[in-house]
């Protein structure tokens, strides 16, 4: 394939990766920002979103769009509830101690993963997309009659992948509106800034923490529901998103939401483009190298605030 169309294909694939990654990493970033805890089980919440989406779409017959819309609402909600329960019954009791939280969330990771293996099984199961059409994409070249459009062989995207990109943008804007314009968002930001003072002002910090933990997990689950018609639901699918989400959050700056979005776009697009022109291994090496450089020269991340 010629360079131009090849680059376009790489960019589109990268955009899909970036979209899902932005949602997943955002969940992790919110949890860290407000609660200051590292949730190693975050990838498993993502996986649970995909698996629950499969259960919902299998239960609801008829047109795949019906099942999909139901899954889009039900799966993140259920995962959020599970996460909030985990916070109430486990994390609160260990008082959010950093080391203990890491160990506890590792335990949750194994419980969710093996529990899914025992019930859902080891197979990867597909979920049908609500709609999916192949769209051949045009490219412009300088032909005999000046600038002309033509349709290069293999250059295409599917309508569903475009939907994923658009949906992620809409959800992120909604999240931004929630955090900056609503009372709940205000309470979350207050708790993030100074939880002791917030408590002195009568904010139920414990309940805010459960809400935030649930919200973070629900965002990851939402990303998974969007991606599951493209990939399939599989009990091991949470591993790579966890790693990438951590990379994004570290590069973007722990606790900075705009930083997370910028880093997700950066990592997603570079992963897509480098993978296409070189190899996915090189793309992962470069992403990890970037994390190392950030940790050495700007440990607070691109947009993070330095704690003085």
């Amino acid at each position, binding site marked *: 394939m010629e360079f131009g169309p*090849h680059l376009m294909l790489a960019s589109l694939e990268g955009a899909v990766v970036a979209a899902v990654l932005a949602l997943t990493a955002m969940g992790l970033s919110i949890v860290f920002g407000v609660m200051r805890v590292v949730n190693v089980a975050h990838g498993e919440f993502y996986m649970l979103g995909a698996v629950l989406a499969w259960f919902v779409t299998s239960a609801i017959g008829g047109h795949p769009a019906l099942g999909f819309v139901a899954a889009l609402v039900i799966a993140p909600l259920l995962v959020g509830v599970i996460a909030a329960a985990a916070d109430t019954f486990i994390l609160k009791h260990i008082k959010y101690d950093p080391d203990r939280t890491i160990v506890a969330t590792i335990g949750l990771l194994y419980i969710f993963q093996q529990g899914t293996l025992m019930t859902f099984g080891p197979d990867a199961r597909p979920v049908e997309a609500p709609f999916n059409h192949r769209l051949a994409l045009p490219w412009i070249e300088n032909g005999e009659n000046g600038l002309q459009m033509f349709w290069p062989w*293999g250059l295409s995207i599917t309508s569903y992948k475009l939907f994923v990109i658009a949906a992620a943008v809409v959800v992120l804007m909604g999240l931004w509106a929630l955090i900056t314009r609503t009372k709940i968002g205000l309470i979350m930001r207050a708790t993030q800034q100074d939880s002791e003072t917030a408590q002195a002002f009568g904010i139920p910090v414990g309940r805010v923490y459960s809400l935030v933990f649930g919200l973070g997990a629900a965002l990851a689950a939402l990303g998974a529901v969007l991606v599951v018609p493209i990939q399939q639901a599989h009990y091991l699918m949470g591993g790579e998103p966890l790693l990438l989400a951590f990379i994004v959050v570290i590069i973007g700056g722990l606790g900075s939401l705009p930083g997370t979005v910028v880093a997700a776009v950066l990592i997603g697009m570079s992963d897509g483009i480098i993978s296409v022109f070189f190899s996915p291994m090189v793309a992962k090496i470069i992403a990890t190298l970037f994390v190392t450089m950030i940790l050495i020269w700007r440990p607070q991340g691109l947009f993070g605030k330095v704690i003085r």
Partner: protein
Amino acid sequence: MKITKTNMTRRTALKGFGAGVGTLAATGLLPGTMGFAQAQSSAPIKIGFQKHATGVGSSYGRWYNATTQAAVKRINDDGGINGRPVEVVIEDDGTDPKRGAEVLEKFENQHKVDVAFGTLFSHVVIGSAPRAAELKLPYFVVSEGHHVASGMLNRYTLQPGITDVKSQVQSMAPFVANNLGKKVAMIYPDFAFGHDHRDFFGDAIAAQGGEVIAKIAIPPSETSFTKYFPQIPRDTDVVYHVMVGPAVLTFVKELGEFFGPSRPEIFGFIDSIEAVDIKSPGLEFLEGTYFWEGNPRHAQANNSSFDTNFRAAVGVDDRGASLADSKDVSTYAHMFGCWETLNVIKAGMETSGYQGSADRQKLIEAVEAMTDMPHSDDHPQGAKRFNGKTHQVFGSQYISKVTDGNLVVEHTALIEDGLYEDEVDYTTQSF
């Protein structure tokens, strides 16, 4: 009357008692401690099944287990091996080479099995086989990798129930070159099994006057594939694909989406859709494409009674799906290997008069002496020919075309089409 005071104290009495028991035990006369090596006992023959219960091979592990249980039930219903029942001990290797070696240690040291069997993924086989040799544990793999016959492994590792990749691609190359095209773009997973495809098909198609114009290696744990397809050259006649792992459906779907309506000829290995329903949404483009099948998933018009009996025993229907759930498609092209391997183990144990682990070398020698295995209920995939020197079996290969959503066999390659020169003679190696 003189009462002689003996020197009997509690301590001496206990020592004497212990010595007496020890002597009896050593002679094997003490009830309950009879050595199994000596008598024809009804203690079970233990077969250690190294199962891919978790990890990337877990779909295959599930069906390998179903087939193993069915085969063992049939053997036990028939009287067992040498009058003894067969017991299967299962351990999960996580589709991981290091775990595989540890599982073999557990089989030998903890479970005290007679033989180990059942591994599929090539990197796990390569990681486990050296340990089997160190433990002197016969290791019957069901893997398709060429490593057994290449001489890379050892005299304790055998593959008598399933053919290997070198033989398979050699049988396929004439059909591909003569019917589909000469310029081939290959897509394969980037590990031992995929490398076997890359290396041997390149040689085989060159011998037919064809050429591999692109080699695209994809990590087996990959989840999104579109980014690889731009590497397929524009002038490709045939796309040759083989993929493993949980994401195979995504792979095939995205291949179809990439080409759209103007696709070249496509020749795939059924591995790319094992455990996946060919009628899945997004796979419509497979209509008119070709697949290598180890064992035809859809029962053909002239099906043998052996295949029918096999399906009934394992619990799959005429489309290779579970009788309990028609959407639950099996790994039909591979799992027959477990059934046939267990029957070979039985035949070997009966020929060698196997009684216990002291007879392991005799068992291996008995299997090495095997040659032709006719098409039968013991070997439902087809007749086989075993090469005792290379420890590898040879059999028929099937090429099917997707016609109206069904896999219809168009060409059957015979055993002779897949034979190649011996690369090793394990029988000259010591145990």
